[in-house]
Structure formats: C-alpha cells, structure tokens
C-alpha cells in the first residue's frame, strides 16, 4: 500500500544526544516514516535520543506504538530515550494509554538534554 509521507523529520546532534524533530500529524499513514527514522537513529547507538514533539499536533495509537517500539530498541542499544515538548493533544493520548510514567517526558528540549 503506498503511503503519503507528508511528515518531515529532521535530526540534529546536541552534545552527546541525537535530537529528532518530527513535524506533522502522526497517524496510521505517517507512523511508518517515524518508525524508519527512529530505527535509523538507534542503529548508531547514541548515548541519548531525544524526540522533540512540539511540531506534532496529533498522534494516534500507531504513533504511540512507534515510540514504545523505539523505547524497547533504545534499551537494547543502551541509549536513553527522552520525549519532550508534547502538545496537549499528544500528552492526552499518553495519559489515556497510561504511558506518561513509562517514558521519560520533559517539558522542553533544554530539560531533555539535561535529563
């Protein structure tokens, strides 16, 4: 099935952390793009992987599943995974799924880098 890819994902190196900036709604059609990006970043086994989510206004359970999968891979890779800058709607789905205590979630990027 061809999927649209109208989500942009950029990455930056900040100290010893890789920071991923996805921009766009993450739903069933877009989560494979995020999954691929997470997998690529974790292959290099960074000390810390930060996912900065201020550009994500909407995320469904497929997006959450992608992040759970990334968390599992990060543990195997020995990388710390931190989520930051969640919008209200994205934070809401983490609360509904009761995952806000499972992930390390910080208010902003600065806090994520020092977490």
């Amino acid at each position, binding site marked *: 099935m061809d999927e649209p890819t109208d989500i942009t994902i950029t990455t930056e190196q900040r100290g010893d952390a890789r920071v991923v900036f996805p921009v766009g709604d993450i*739903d069933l059609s877009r989560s494979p793009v995020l999954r691929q990006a997470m997998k690529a970043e974790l292959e290099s086994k960074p000390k810390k992987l930060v996912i900065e989510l201020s550009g994500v206004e909407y995320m*469904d359970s497929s997006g959450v*599943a992608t992040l759970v999968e990334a968390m599992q891979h990060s543990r195997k890779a020995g990388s710390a995974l931190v989520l930051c800058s969640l919008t209200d709607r994205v934070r809401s789905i983490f609360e*509904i799924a009761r995952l806000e205590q499972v992930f390390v979630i910080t208010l902003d990027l600065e806090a994520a880098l020092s977490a």
Partner: protein
Amino acid sequence: MSPMPSPHPNPEDAGRPDAAPTQVDPAVDSAVGPAVEVRLLSHPTYLAGSRELVIGIARRLGFDDNGAGKIALATDEALANVINHGYKRQPDRPIWIRLWPLAAPNQPGIRIVIEDEAPHIDPEAICGRDLADVKPGGLGVHIIKEVMDVVEYSKRSPVGMRLTMIKRLTPRAADPTADPTADQSTGPTDDPTRGETEHHG
C-alpha cells in the same frame, strides 16, 4: 446540514430501536438518515479528512477543543482498526461513518456509527489489552472505551461489523463559546440506543 437518505441501507436496522422512534427527531431518525454520512475507502490517507470532519462537527455541537479532539481520536482509532484488522490493510474496501447529534431532554452529545464489510468477529472478543503489559500496538480499543461513554460492537447482516459510539456533552467537555443554535437542530427525542449495553472505559 440536511439529513439525507442512506445509500447503504442495512436490513438489520429494521428491527432496531432507532428504526422507528415514537417521537420522531429528524436528527436521530434512521428512517430519514443521519445528519452526516460519509463513505471512505480503507486507505490510511483518508483518516486525516475524517478526523477533521468529526472534530468540526463535535465542536459545533458544543464540545470544547479537548473533548472534540478526543472524539476524533476515538473515531480515528476505530477506523484504523477496521483498516488493520477488519480489512487486513486492503486499501479499497468501504467504510461508512454516520453521525447524529443527540438532543435533550437528557444530556446532548454525539452518536457515531462506523460500519464495514469485513468478516464477522465475536463482539465479545473485541477488547483492549492489559495496559500494564507495555508493548507496541493494541491500544486502539482501550482508547475508544476510555474516551467514549458508550461503545458497542455488533454484527451487520449478512457481512460486516458495526461500532456504535456515544459521547455525552458534560459541563467539563462543553465549550461555553459554542454556537447555541447548534442544539436547535435537534428535537425532543433522546438518543435511540438507550437500553443498549454500555461499556465505560
């Protein structure tokens, strides 16, 4: 928004309590049709459009941004389940979304019915996974039941499944700036699924 006849009549509707309400409300009378009916193909591309539709209508019915967003999320999860599990990712199968505003005298709200032509499954077998078991996937049903006040799966005839979801407008979810005329489009009849099984998340 004018009610329109359903292009997708369902024989099972004949015996349902919503088929002939004693107090006819055009907003909920299935003989006239739902307030909104959309047919889409089972391709993930169309999820964004259906979300926008649902969130826009929910806001118009008085839900605040948070409440409308959660209703759209539940609808999105239901559609994703049809695509992933019902149709096994076949991208060209039909899905119908129908919306009804719910009116006084009880709490107003929104009723959303999603139908497909996927193979039957036992409605009792549709349940969310244990949240303590953290793993990718399996959250959709939990989210739907957590967000909506009423969630009921049933079999259509001869094929397909139907999901009926209801969300009541509570003071917490109400938008005080909502257009007060929105509720005037509904009449005195309460929602037609009263008495059906309720599953609170």
